[in-house]
C-alpha cells in the first residue's frame, strides 16, 4: 500500500467529517470528530490526530479539499465586519428598499431583512452612467472624497462601491477604488463590478456587501487553518469548495468568500453525482436530511443543475450555485399541536442541544424520536454506538401528542412521520412542478443522517423509480469535495435584442469571458489537471418577458452563431421547458455566461466483493409504519456483498445512518457498494 492520501473535510454543526482516500488502493476511510465551534481548525487538528492513530501520517496527505462554513455562519449570525457603502447620488436606499415585496405580505409583523450596512454608513457620490455604459455625469471627485472621508469617519473597516450600470463600464467604480487606496489606505474596498458584473443594482450591491462583510472572518480562519496544518505536518495547501460545486485554491477563496456560502451542500451534491454515476443512474433527486431540515437538489442525466440566484439569511446571492431547495423537516424537527388541534412537525427544531428527547437531555419529541419509537433505529448502535439513545425518553416526550391523538406512543410516532413525509411530498412536488420535471423519471439519492430512513416513504409518494443509498451517506459531502473539479463562472450582461447583435460581437464577448476564466485557472495552484472544458450559455427571453431562461450553446452553435440558428434553438428550448414557443417573437439576450471546469484526476474507489442470493439478516425487529406492524429483518450494511438482496420490510444498519426498506420494496447492493431499493412488482 503506498502512502499517498487524499483528504476531504466537511465541518458540520455537530461533527467534523474527515474522509481519506488512498490514491493507490481506492480505499475510503471516514472519521468523525466533534466540531469545535469556537475554533474549527482545532476540530480538524483533532481529526488529523485520529487519522495518525490509524497510521495515516499528515505528510502523506497530498491533496486536501475543505468546505468551510465560516462565511455562512458569519452571515447568518451577523458577526461580520462594520462596512460602508458608496452609491450613485439619488439611490441611497438601495439596501433599504431592496425589491420591496415583503416576505409574508399579509402578516402585519413581516419586514424586509435588515441590511448589512445601516443607512448611516451609506454615502452618495455625484456620478452617472447610462444603460450603454457611457458617462452621463462624470465622477465628481469632491463628492467622492467626502464619501470616502465619511466612510472612514464612520468607523467602517471596508467600503463597498456600487454605481448604476457599472456592469457595463467599471470606470467610476475603479476610480473610486483607486482613490480609496490613495486617501484612505486602511479601508478595504470592494467594487461590485469586479466581484460579479451582472445587471441588477440591489442584488449586486447586497452581494458585494456580503462578500466584504464576511471576508475578514474567513481570511482570519484561513490563516489559522494554514498555520495549524503546518504545525501538524501537512505539506499541501488546501483547496476550498464553492457554491458552484467546484473547488478553488485558498488564496482565491479569501478574495471572494461569497463564493463559498453554499459550498457544504454543493459538495454533497457533487458527491451524489459521483455516487449516481457509479450506480449508473442518470436522473436523481438528492435527498439530504440533516438535523434541522431536509434539502433536495436535482441531477439530470448525470449532471447537477444550477441556479443563478439564491438567498441566504435574507440576502440575495446572484452567483451560479448548485440548485438546492429545502423541502421540510429534519431529524430534530419536533412535533406540536397547533391552535386547531392539528398535528404538526417542524419547522422548529430541537437543534444539537438539547437534541431529540432520546439523547437524554431534551423533552420535545423530534422526528429522530419517532424513528426510534417506530423501531427503525437501534438505540445501542446509533452513530456507530457513539451516542446512546433512550427510547423511554422518546416515549415520555411524545406522551402529550399521543394523548391528544388518543393513540399509543408508537402510533403517535408513526403519525408524526406520516405528517412530515406528506409535507415533504408537497414541497418536493412543488419544486419539480416549478421546473417541469416528472418525479416518476427520477430516483431518490438519500444521504445525511436521516435521509436513508425516510427516503423510501418519499419515493413511494412521488413514485420515484428507485432509492439509491451510497455506501457512506453520512460523509457524502467530504467525498464530493474529494472528487470535485475546479470551476469558474464568468458573466457579462449584454441586454440586447438578437437582431441588434452581430455574430462577430457575440464571439468576441464570449472570447473575452473565456480568456478571463482561463486566466483564473492558470493562476490556480492546481497541478496535474486532466485538461479543462469551457461551457457557454446565454440567458435569453422573448422581448417583453420578465424572466429569462438559460440556453446552453454547443460549439457549433457558438461557431456559426447566426441569429436564425440561435433563435430556433431558443424556440425549441422554450417549447421544451414551457410547452409553447413563439417563433414570431423577437429574442432578447440578457447575459452571456461561461463556465470553465478544470478536471481533477478522479480517484478510483475500491469495489465491493461479489456475493450471491440473499444477504443474511443479523436479527429481527418489529417496526410500524402506515398504521401497520411488521417484522423486519435487520442487516449490517458492511456485510452486504455486491449482488446480494435484502427483502423488505427490512432495516439496514450502518455506522452513519440506517436504511429502511418498505415491505413492497427490496434492496440490492452493487459493486460500488451502493444499496439500491426498488419496488418488488418491477422485479423481473
Amino acid at each position, binding site marked *: 500500500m503506498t502512502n499517498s492520501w487524499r483528504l476531504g473535510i466537511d465541518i458540520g454543526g455537530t461533527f467534523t467529517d474527515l474522509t481519506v482516500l488512498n490514491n493507490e488502493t481506492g480505499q475510503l476511510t471516514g472519521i468523525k470528530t466533534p466540531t469545535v465551534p469556537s475554533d474549527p481548525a482545532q476540530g480538524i487538528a483533532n481529526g488529523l490526530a485520529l487519522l495518525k492513530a490509524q497510521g495515516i501520517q499528515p505528510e502523506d496527505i497530498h491533496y486536501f479539499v475543505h468546505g468551510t462554513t465560516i462565511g455562512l455562519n458569519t452571515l447568518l449570525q451577523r458577526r461580520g465586519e462594520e462596512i460602508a457603502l458608496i452609491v450613485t447620488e439619488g439611490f441611497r436606499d438601495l439596501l*433599504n428598499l431592496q425589491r420591496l415585496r415583503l416576505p409574508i405580505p399579509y402578516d402585519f409583523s413581516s*419586514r*424586509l431583512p435588515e441590511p448589512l450596512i445601516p443607512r448611516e454608513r451609506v454615502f452618495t457620490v455625484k456620478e452617472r452612467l447610462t*444603460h450603454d455604459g457611457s458617462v*452621463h455625469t462624470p465622477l465628481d471627485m469632491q463628492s467622492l472624497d467626502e464619501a470616502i472621508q465619511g466612510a472612514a469617519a464612520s468607523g467602517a473597516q471596508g467600503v463597498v462601491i456600487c454605481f448604476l450600470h457599472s456592469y457595463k463600464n467599471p470606470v467610476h467604480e475603479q476610480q473610486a477604488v483607486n482613490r480609496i487606496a490613495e486617501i484612505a489606505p486602511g479601508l478595504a474596498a470592494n467594487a461590485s463590478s469586479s466581484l460579479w458584473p451582472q445587471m441588477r443594482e440591489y442584488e449586486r450591491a447586497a452581494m458585494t456587501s456580503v462578500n466584504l462583510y464576511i471576508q475578514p472572518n474567513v481570511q482570519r480562519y484561513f490563516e489559522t487553518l494554514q498555520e495549524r496544518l503546518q504545525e501538524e505536518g501537512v505539506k499541501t495547501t488546501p483547496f476550498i469548495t464553492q457554491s458552484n460545486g467546484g473547488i478553488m485554491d485558498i488564496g482565491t477563496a479569501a478574495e471572494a468568500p461569497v463564493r463559498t456560502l453554499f459550498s457544504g451542500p454543493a459538495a454533497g451534491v457533487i458527491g451524489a453525482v459521483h455516487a449516481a454515476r457509479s450506480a449508473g443512474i442518470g436522473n436523481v433527486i438528492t435527498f439530504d436530511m440533516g438535523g434541522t431540515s431536509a434539502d433536495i437538489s436535482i441531477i439530470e442525466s448525470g449532471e447537477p443543475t444550477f441556479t443563478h440566484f439564491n438567498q441566504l439569511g435574507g440576502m440575495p446571492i446572484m452567483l451560479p450555485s448548485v440548485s438546492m431547495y429545502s423541502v421540510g423537516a429534519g431529524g430534530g424537527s419536533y412535533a406540536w399541536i397547533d391552535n386547531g388541534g392539528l398535528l404538526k412537525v417542524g419547522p422548529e427544531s430541537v437543534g444539537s442541544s438539547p437534541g431529540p428527547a432520546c439523547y437524554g437531555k431534551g423533552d420535545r419529541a423530534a422526528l429522530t424520536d419517532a424513528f426510534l419509537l417506530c423501531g427503525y433505529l437501534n438505540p445501542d448502535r446509533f452513530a456507530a454506538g457513539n451516542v446512546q439513545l433512550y427510547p423511554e425518553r422518546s416515549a415520555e416526550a411524545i406522551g402529550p401528542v399521543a394523548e391528544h391523538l388518543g393513540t399509543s406512543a408508537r402510533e403517535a410516532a408513526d403519525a408524526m412521520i406520516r405528517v412530515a413525509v*406528506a409535507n415533504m411530498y408537497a414541497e418536493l412536488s412543488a419544486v419539480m412542478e416549478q421546473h417541469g420535471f416528472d418525479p416518476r423519471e427520477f430516483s431518490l439519492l438519500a444521504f445525511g443522517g436521516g435521509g436513508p430512513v425516510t427516503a423510501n416513504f418519499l419515493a413511494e409518494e412521488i413514485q420515484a423509480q428507485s432509492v439509491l443509498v451510497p455506501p457512506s451517506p453520512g460523509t457524502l459531502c467530504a467525498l464530493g469535495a474529494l472528487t470535485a473539479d475546479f470551476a469558474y463562472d464568468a458573466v457579462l450582461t449584454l*441586454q440586447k435584442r438578437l437582431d441588434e447583435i452581430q455574430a462577430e460581437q457575440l464571439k468576441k464577448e464570449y472570447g473575452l469571458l473565456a480568456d478571463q476564466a482561463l486566466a483564473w485557472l492558470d493562476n490556480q495552484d492546481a497541478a496535474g489537471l486532466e485538461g479543462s472544458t469551457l461551457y457557454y450559455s446565454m440567458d435569453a427571453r422573448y422581448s417583453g418577458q420578465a424572466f429569462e431562461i438559460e440556453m446552453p450553446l454547443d460549439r457549433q452553435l457558438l461557431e456559426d452563431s447566426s441569429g436564425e440558428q440561435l433563435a430556433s434553438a431558443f424556440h425549441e428550448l422554450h417549447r421544451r421547458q414551457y410547452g409553447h414557443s413563439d417563433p414570431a417573437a423577437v429574442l432578447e439576450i440578457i447575459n452571456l455566461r461561461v463556465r470553465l471546469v478544470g478536471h481533477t484526476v478522479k480517484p478510483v474507489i475500491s469495489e465491493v466483493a461479489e456475493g450471491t442470493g440473499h444477504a443474511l439478516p443479523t436479527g429481527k425487529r418489529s417496526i410500524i409504519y402506515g398504521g401497520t406492524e411488521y417484522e423486519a429483518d435487520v442487516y449490517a450494511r458492511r456485510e452486504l456483498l455486491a449482488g446480494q438482496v435484502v427483502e423488505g420490510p427490512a432495516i439496514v444498519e450502518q455506522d452513519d445512518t440506517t436504511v429502511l426498506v418498505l415491505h413492497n420494496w427490496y434492496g440490492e447492493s452493487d459493486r460500488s457498494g451502493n444499496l439500491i431499493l426498488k419496488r418488488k412488482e418491477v422485479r423481473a
Partner: protein
Amino acid sequence: MKTDPATLEIMRSYYNAIAAGMGHVIERTSFTTFVKESADFATALAAPSGEFFVYPKTVGVTIFLGLSVKRAAEACGPLEPGDIIITNEPYSSDGLATHLPDVHVFKPIFVDGELISYAWAFVHCSDVGGLVPSSISPEATDIHQEGLRIPPVKLYKRGEANPDVHTFLNANSRSPKLNLGDFNAMVAAVNTAEQRMLSLVDKFGVQAVKDSMEDLMDQGESRARQVISRIPDGTYSFADYLDDDMVSDTPVRLAVSVIVKDGDITLDFSKCDPQVRTAFNLVTNGKKHSFLFQGLINYIISSDPYIPVNGGLTRPISVIAPAGTLVNPVYPAAVGVRHTITMRLYNAVLGALAKAIPDEIPAAGAGQSAIVVLSTPDLLNGTRNMAVVQPMGGGGGGQSDMDGADGIDHASGFLRNTPIESLEQHIEVLVHRYELLENTAGAGQHRGGHAIVLDFEILEEGSTVTARGMERLRFHPWGLAGGQAGSLGQVTLNPGSEQERPLPKISVLHPSPGDIISIQSPGGGGWGSPYLRKPEEVLEEFRAGLISQEHAEQQYGVVLEVQNGSWSVNKGATESLRESVQVQDDMWDFGPSRTAYESVWTPEASDTLAVLLQQLPPMQRAVRKQWVHDEAARQSKDHALMPEDIQGLWEQWAATAR
C-alpha cells in the same frame, strides 16, 4: 371533526400540493407578463358548495380566498364531467371576477357521477378589449367600455373544446395569442388538479376526501372565530376617504360599522357612499366578498399563522352592502380600478377594529399603489413601448410593537419593484432619484414607514405617463393611539428648477423631453405618542438622515446637539421640552385636510346624505351627491353641516326639480 388530527394535517398537505401545483403550471406556461412580474393570478380547490377549501399561501395573490364559484357554476348548469367553465364577468358571477382582465377558469370534478370538488384558477390576462390597451382606464364610465364581458360559459363541454367560445374571445382582444396562452395554461392547471384529486380519492376513499374538506373549512371557521372572540363585543364605526372620483373634487367616503358579537362579525356598509361614475366600483352583488375585508383576513392570519387558509375563515363574517353603494354597484357601473377601493376598505375596516383593539391594529399605511407607467413611441414599428417605471406604494403604518415598514405597506406588500438598471435597458428614461424621503413618516412611539420619492427624466418626444391607483394626495394616512398622520403623496414637475410646479393627481401626462417628473408616495401613520419614543431611537434616525434636527425637536421633543462633530441627545433639554408640552392624547390623527373637510362635512352629514341617496336609482346617485356638495358650497355653508342641513338641501333639490 370527522378526520383525525394527523390525517387531516396529511390531507391538508396533499390538497395544498394540488392547489399550489396548479399555480406552478400557470407560472411556467402562461403567456402574460402579469403572472411573472406581479404574480397576478391564483389557484384553489373548491368544495361542492363553491367555497374554497384550500387556498395556497405561497403562490399568487391571497385576496380571493373568500370567494365562491357557486353562482358561476349555477349559471352554466347542469355540469358534467369534462366541462370547463370560463368567465370574467363580475355581475353574473357574484364578483368571482372583479374586473374584466381577470379571467377565471374552473372545472367540476366528479366521482361516479357525484360532484366532489372544483379546481379553480384565474389569471390577469394581457387585454380583453375596451377603451385602452390592457383594458383598464379609471375614466371608464360603464363596464362595456372596459372590454369583452364573458358571462360563465363552457370552454370545454364533456372534454371537448367549444370552438365557438374561442372564436368570440379571439376576436375581442388586442392580443388574442397571449390570452389563448393564458387560457390554455389554466386549462392545463385544472386538468392536472382533477387527475391528482382523483388519485387522492383512490388512495383515501371518497368519503374521507369529502369529510376532510369540510373539516378543513371547519378548522378555518372555528379558528377565525377564536381570533374574533378576542375582540370585545360592540359596534365600531369608522370611515375613510378616497381623495376624489377623478371627475370631480368631491371625496368618496367609505363608511363601515363593524358589529362584533359572540365570535361573529358583521360589516355594515349601509352608510357607504354611492357607486361612482368612474371605474372605482367593486361588484359584490351584496354578498360577502373577501375584497371587502382583506384587512380583517390579514389580522386573522397574522394572529394564527398556522390557520388552514380557506373560505371557512370568512364564515364568521357577514356583510350588509345595499345595492347602489360603492361596495355593491349595479350594472353597468365600471369596475376596472376596484383595487383602489379595496385598499381604502382595508384602512376602513382596520380603523373600525382599532376602536376595539388598538394595540393589535397598525396605523394606516400609505393605502395606495400607484402603478407608474411610461409609454414611448416605437417609430420603427409604429407601436408604443410600455414599462412600469416603479410601483409606488409608500410607508406602512406603525404598530404597537414595531415601526411601520419603510417604502412598502402591507395592503400592497406583494408589489415588487423594478431594478433601475433593467428599467433603463428596457425603455428610454433616466431615473434621477429613487429613495426614502426624510421627515415623511408619521411620528409616533412606533413611527410609520417613510415615503418613497421617484424622480425620472423623460428622454423621448411623445412620451406619456400614467399612474393608475394614485391616492392620498389629499387625505393623510391616519395615525393611531396618539401617533401622527403620515405625509401626503404629491407630484411635481421639474423639482428644484425654475420650471418647478406642482401637478395634480396623474391621469395622463404628456411631458416633453428633459422634463423631470417627481412622484412622492404617502408616508405611513405613526402609532403611540411620539413623546414616548426613546430619544436614542430618534437620534439614530437623525444620524441615518431619515429625520432632521427640527423634526426631532418638533415632533418628538428630542433636543439634539453636536459636540466635537458628534451628535448626541441633550437629555436635560429633552426632558424639559417633553414635560413642557401638553401631550395630546387623541386616539386619532387624521391630518389637517380631513379635519378641515369634516369640520364642514361632518360624519353625521355624510351619513345622512349617503342614506338619502339610496332612495334614488343607483345611476343617479353620484350626480345628486355632487349637486348637494356643490349647493352646500354655493350657499357657503362653511359651518359644521348637521343632518338637518342635508335634509334641507335634499328637499331643496326636490323643489328645484319640480
